[in-house]
């Protein structure tokens, strides 16, 4: 079965894109598909640690991203986007691979299907 690449370009919570990206990533691995979740632009903010959903009415998407990692989704964060958001590897959970633009291009090239959020 071919790989699925899910690209998240938008920051979490302001709109549904981040929630849908992780939902479909989890759905993919639950169906035993191979899923790459690639965080670019403001999408890298999904990986920010310490998200507190107390009394907000939201599902904690930081925790859902951790679920993705535990379930076997390969999660990547764009190095350039992390720098743009003043983040570095210390700001993101262990297990997320920091990659360059050309490495992202290779991941997408190798995927059978790409979903962009």
């Amino acid at each position, binding site marked *: 079965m071919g790989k699925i690449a899910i690209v998240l370009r938008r920051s979490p919570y*302001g709109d549904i894109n981040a929630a849908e990206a992780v939902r479909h990533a989890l759905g993919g691995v639950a169906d035993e598909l191979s899923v790459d979740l690639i965080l670019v632009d403001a999408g890298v903010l999904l990986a920010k640690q310490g998200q507190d959903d107390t009394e907000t009415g939201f599902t904690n998407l930081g925790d859902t991203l951790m679920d993705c990692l535990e379930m076997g989704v390969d999660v990547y964060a764009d190095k350039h986007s992390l720098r743009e958001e003043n983040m570095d590897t210390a700001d993101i959970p262990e297990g997320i691979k920091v990659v360059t633009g050309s490495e992202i291009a290779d991941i997408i090239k190798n995927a059978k299907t790409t979903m962009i959020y």
Partner: protein
Amino acid sequence: MSKTFTLLLGTSPYSYENTLTTVKIAESALNKGYTVNVIASGDGVYCFLKGQKAKGITNAEEKFTELIEKGLRVYL
């Protein structure tokens, strides 16, 4: 005379954060005794559809129903 808050809600309930922001502001203003109107425009009208089944996120129908009971005025 008490101040009136009029909030314009123009987006569908679960695609954006606007519904929740509107709910929270309306709830706080009602608790403080202000008059609160919500005008639903465009896709905002979907916030008031009956039979919404949303879980894991604030259910717009349930929350607005609760606020209407507290005095919220809604115009579609």
